[in-house]
């Protein structure tokens, strides 16, 4: 029988994968992907808990997370475009003029 913890652990694993992606990747686009993964991981957990408790709040939360993820992508891509126009690169290592 698949219990709540299965889903939660899956969510944890996916979250960590996303985290690894965030930490590892140097391309900003890939960072966006990784955050999507993390948000989706939480969605699984929300829906699983929601199912487990028979409560709709979790699904609500997941719904809004999807909305938020969408908005973030829009703004993020806008930023990337303007950045790319200026820098010609999306590599984080090129984006370190402010430091110290």
């Amino acid at each position, binding site marked *: 029988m698949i219990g709540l913890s299965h889903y939660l652990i899956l969510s944890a694993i996916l979250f960590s994968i996303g985290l690894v992606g965030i*930490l590892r990747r*140097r391309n900003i686009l890939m960072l966006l992907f990784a955050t999507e993964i993390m948000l989706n991981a939480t969605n699984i957990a929300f829906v699983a808990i929601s199912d487990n408790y028979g409560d709709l709040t979790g699904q609500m939360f997941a719904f809004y997370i999807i909305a938020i993820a969408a908005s973030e992508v829009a703004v993020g891509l806008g930023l990337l475009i303007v950045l790319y126009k200026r820098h010609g690169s999306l590599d984080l290592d090129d984006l*370190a*003029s402010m*430091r110290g």
Partner: protein
Amino acid sequence: MESLVYVALFAPFVGSLFASLFGMSERQIFVGVVASLLLFISFLASALLAANLYITGDVIHITMMDWISAGDFNVAFGFVVDQISVTMMTVVTLVSTIVHIYAIGYMDHDKSFNRFFSYLSAFVFSMMILVMSDNFLGLFIGWEGVGVCSWLLVGFWYHKPDQDRKDNPSISPSWAANEAFIMNRIADLGMLVGIFILYWNTGSLQYDEVFAKLPELSESVLVGAAIALFIGAMGKSAQFPLHTWLTDAMEGPTPVSALIHAATMVTAGVFLVVRSNPLYSMEEVAGVSMFIASLGTFVAFYAASMALVERDLKRIIAYSTLSQLGYMFAAAGLGAYWIALFHLAAHAFFKALLFLGGGNVMHAMHDELDLFKMGDLRKKMRGTWLYMGFASIALVGLPPLAGFWSKDAIIETAFNEHTYILWIMLVITAGMTAFYSFRQVFLSFHGEDRHTALGFHPHEMYKFVLAAMFPLAVLALITGWFMSSYKEFIYKIGESVQYEMSDHTHHLAIYLALMVIFIVLSSITFAYFKYARTGEKAWKRDEEKEQGFFYKLLINQYYVPKFYEEFITKPYAMISEVFWTKIDLKIVDATVDNIAKFFYATGDKTRSMQTGNLSNYLNWMAVGAMILLGVAAISAMIGLGGIDG
């Protein structure tokens, strides 16, 4: 009578202020005249007070105004004119008047003439406060006041440069002045401590109140106070080991030496002991008194020994002063306070005379003081010769001059107290005194003429100066004759100053005196044969002898100044330097700076955390989260989760 007290006290002050008004202007004879006149008024007032006291026996005690009061402590400017203080007042004002008049002539050519008088009168004022005050703190005012005036006067010729100790043992007037001031300060600390002890145990500093409470005090308090006060006295009266400043103080103008460093200020220590006689005569402090007597005797001998070989005219007289102060302390320590006081007065007269004579010589010789460069001066300076010879006779203690009476009484006292060692030393010292006094007289006034060859053309001092010195000569002669009446006079103070020889001593007194006189006379004779002859038998300098151990020891003052320099002055300077450069700058300050630098350096290191690379930032964030989670997991597992209700 009260107004007379004020007149006696403030006349010198007015003189000083008056002179200081002209302090920065050209020499004005009238400044000296006015100052002298005011002093004379002060003397007259003092003499009237003395006469009044002698006749009526009423001690005058007045309080001028409050000075310091804090908590229970209360001290006023109060003055007392009793037998002790009136003695001092009279002596001080008399000698001062004469010295002032003398100085008009002596300082004739000095452009700081007016300034000199302002200092000198200020000194007298301080001295009057010292002797007239009715409490220890008032005495301390005068005590410090005379110290400052002494500093000003010793360093009067401030512009003279420092010399090597070999050329001039006193280095320079300003150096000598500082030395005098600082050494006195060391002693003053002792005196302050004495004052503290007395205050906290008796609740007052007024003589009569303090002395009234003395019997109630414990032995340790009494001994402490006695020692502390005596330390104060040691400084002012230049007792070993605080004696070196006195000879160096001879850098000052000669009237200063006469007044301050012979007649008045240096006797303040003796005065203090005499003033505190109720304390020093207590059973409990007998040990301290004995120590005072012993130290006095020692200094008498010690100073005399150095005088034996000294070549500098003024320094010889200074040594003799030291030596005589020793005598006084011996007397005071042995309980013969009135004898000490009497010797003080007598000494003041003949020593002042001696110094002023020396001043004449110096004036004539253009400040040259080396006896070896003089000789046969009596032909050119007959008056001075007479004065100095006379004063020397008084000093060595030949009857019927003043020195005989007082000094003999001291030697007798030592005998009477069965302190035979002291007695023997005092007798020997008397012999030495005779020798060096006349060595000095003979070397300067007799023997071969050594100065003409060196280009000196001495001339006699002004007549009025010689005339002014005359009263001193008279006093040097006659003072001793009034010894018994003085005794009667001072006995009225109370039991503690009364001192009588035992019958046994009384019987032997004449033989003892004769013995001393014999020793003195033989010393003079010896000196005469050694130094006073002319022609072939004339004295010649013996260079070889000057290389001898004892000679060198004595001429170098037993190496005490050198010791002070090497073991106190230099190390002090060195330690100060180390404290500053090594400890203060390198440790204390550096610690503070290093704390600041540490933060700054940490900032520089921490700054590297801010690489500017987003990836690092994200790493930081994740690392932070993971550390927190890790710590949370561990603390949750070991139950530190911390629900503490």
